[in-house]
């Protein structure tokens, strides 16, 4: 339609090339061009990429393993790297040393910083052996100390390094979200696709079903399913069961959207043309309908991601989700469940910051993608 309009308008060579490029661009190129103009969404995407990267190679970025207990380092407060102390400044960053001392008032053993002791930070140091990505055996860590211990985010009540645990938790939390979203998506695609394509009686039944699932409050429902996990299940089994639960309760919203979109596309001329040419149902859905709203689906996936993340965190927080020794953001936050715990060790609340940043990033990314994928917004 628009191209015919163009042929009547006289255009300079340069303009028409630009216009040619615009009109011949594929849908994804168009989305990409629009997306490049959205700074906020790009920032979100960047943060998520960094989180995913760091999580994927957590063992390398970690100075310690997730369950390694550092002796004499119970509830150490975060050690902030610095370049200067009373003795002067150096190019090599260092952290103050940690000593155990008995509190005169409470008679509890406490760990305090000793600024006079300086522990140099070295890069690419040899440390605990680990398997990168599960199969490359290595023992080099990004940073570490030659003596003493470094706890950038402090330690928990068992003397485990919070920074190391947090990076491992990032991997678990993000991956559980991804797997959950994918399973929910497949379910939604099948069920929503059937409802939207066939319409009529099938549609009505499926609609009622999704309505019933949606009317029950989500977290109490998750809790009921999670409570049913046998206590003797291994942490891997619980992990996969969790992704299944997240997906099971997450599909109705996605299915509704897919159905709505399919219903509106079903009446399009090219679909009727395909049907008249004798194409079967699966071919019409797969070849004609799905590509037409692929971009919507991707946006919906990104938008539904933070729900999974938040649900997992909430469930693990109350002890019905993932269980130690698996670490996720929610599992880490279990240590900060009471005010007393936070009062004693405020740094145990740091994982909450990661949750908020990740969800915010997903939200702005989702919003940016949605705007970019909207074909009716040609103006920018």
């Amino acid at each position, binding site marked *: 339609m628009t191209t015919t309009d163009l042929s009547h308008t006289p255009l300079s060579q340069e303009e028409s090339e630009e216009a040619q490029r615009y009109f011949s661009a594929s849908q994804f190129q168009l989305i990409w061009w629009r997306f490049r103009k959205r700074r906020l969404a790009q920032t979100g995407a960047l943060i998520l990429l960094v989180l995913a990267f760091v999580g994927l190679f957590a063992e390398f970025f970690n100075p310690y393993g997730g369950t390694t207990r550092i002796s004499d380092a119970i509830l150490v407060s975060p050690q902030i790297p610095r370049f200067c102390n009373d003795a002067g400044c150096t190019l090599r960053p260092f952290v103050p040393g940690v000593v155990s001392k008995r509190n005169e008032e409470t008679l509890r053993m406490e760990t305090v910083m000793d600024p006079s002791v300086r522990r140099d930070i070295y890069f690419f140091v040899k440390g605990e052996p680990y398997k990168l990505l599960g199969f490359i055996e290595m023992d080099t860590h990004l940073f570490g100390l030659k003596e003493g211990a470094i706890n950038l985010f402090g330690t928990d009540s068992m003397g485990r390094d919070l920074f190391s645990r947090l990076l491992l938790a990032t991997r678990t939390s993000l991956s559980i979200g991804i797997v959950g979203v994918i399973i929910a998506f497949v379910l939604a695609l099948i069920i929503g696709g059937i409802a939207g394509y066939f319409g009529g009686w099938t549609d009505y039944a499926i609609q*009622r*079903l999704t*309505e*019933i*699932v*949606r*009317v*029950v*409050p*989500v*977290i*109490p*429902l998750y*809790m*009921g*399913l*999670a*409570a*049913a996990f*046998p206590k003797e299940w291994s942490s891997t089994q619980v992990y996969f069961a969790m992704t299944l639960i997240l997906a099971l309760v997450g599909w109705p919203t996605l299915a509704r959207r897919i159905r709505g979109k399919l219903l509106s596309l079903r009446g399009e001329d090219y679909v009727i043309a395909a049907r008249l040419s004798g194409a079967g149902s699966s071919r019409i859905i797969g070849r004609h309908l799905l590509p037409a709203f692929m971009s919507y689906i991707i946006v919906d996936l990104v938008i539904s991601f*933070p729900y999974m993340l*938040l649900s997992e*965190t*909430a469930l693990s*927080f*109350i*002890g*019905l989700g993932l269980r130690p020794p698996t670490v996720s953001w929610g599992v880490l*936050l279990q240590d*900060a*469940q009471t*005010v007393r715990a*936070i*009062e004693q060790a*405020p740094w145990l*609340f740091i994982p*909450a910051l990661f*949750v*908020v*940043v990740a*969800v*915010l990033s997903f*939200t*702005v990314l989702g919003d940016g993608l949605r705007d970019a994928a909207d074909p009716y917004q040609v103006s920018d």
Partner: protein
Amino acid sequence: MIKFLVQRTLGMIVTMFFVSIMVFIIMELPPGDYAERWAFRKFSGTGAQITQADLDNIRANFGLDRPAPERYFKWISNIVLHGDFGEAFAFQTSVNNVIGQKIWLTLAILFSTLIVTYIISIPVGMYAAVRRNSLEDYALTVFSYLGFALPNFLLALILLYISITYFDTSVGGLFSPDYADAPWSMDKALDLLSHLVVPAIILAWSATAFQLQTVRATMLDELNTLSVTAARARGVPEWKLLLKYPARLAINPVVSTIGFDANRIFSELPIVALVLGLPELGQLLLKSYLDLDMFVAGAILLILTFMIVFMNFLSDIFLAILDPRVKLIEG
């Protein structure tokens, strides 16, 4: 209107029927059965030996040897006909006893949260729409993002921490220690009311953020309608025309999502209640899930869902009264 009411009531009953089946399935999910858990509770620590015959006896007593559909029918008909939710074995009393008072506390929390949500979101959302693209508008957008990204239970922890560190008071619980076990009186009610404020604000956090955006968006749409332009041309004062045309319509989507808000609030309730130490149904639900006290859990899940379905029903009726266009579609 009568036809509309009957239709909606029937819809509500059908929905609750399917929900009850779902709840029953969840109750049946945990491994082991009620008899084993009951026997374990009763005899653990007494040194008594439990044989398979004993277990079978208990099963027969509770009717657990019957097929699932029959048990479901017995469970649901007891609830519907006698209002009897079964037995809470962890408490060694009936579910009704355990839940009783907590229903009212839960309703009190729900309504105070809804009130806080609407008192904030409706006027502020309208204001943001009128002052579109102003600094206040952007600040509210940021708040809306945070309302989603910062879960209520984390907000609760932060507020608790601040109140203890800087004000040296605790905001947890629903009653002051003096009133916790006291009989109901005016003073106790006032005490409850003052303790409801903080939980209500915390629970309203994300619902408010969400409704703000809804009100703002509808208001923006309505501001561009011809009726507003016409009123402006007639010389109607700006505040008057805002209240007369767009504001009235901007409330409709809010009314239509009361059930949705109730769902959101109940969804967040158990975890916030855990952090704040609120003695209501959500917290009890969590506890009974952890104890696998499934009759209590099932009853609570059913009651919470029923409240949501009922709120949906109410919002449909309100909407039909408020917005004449709805009736045309629904017949």
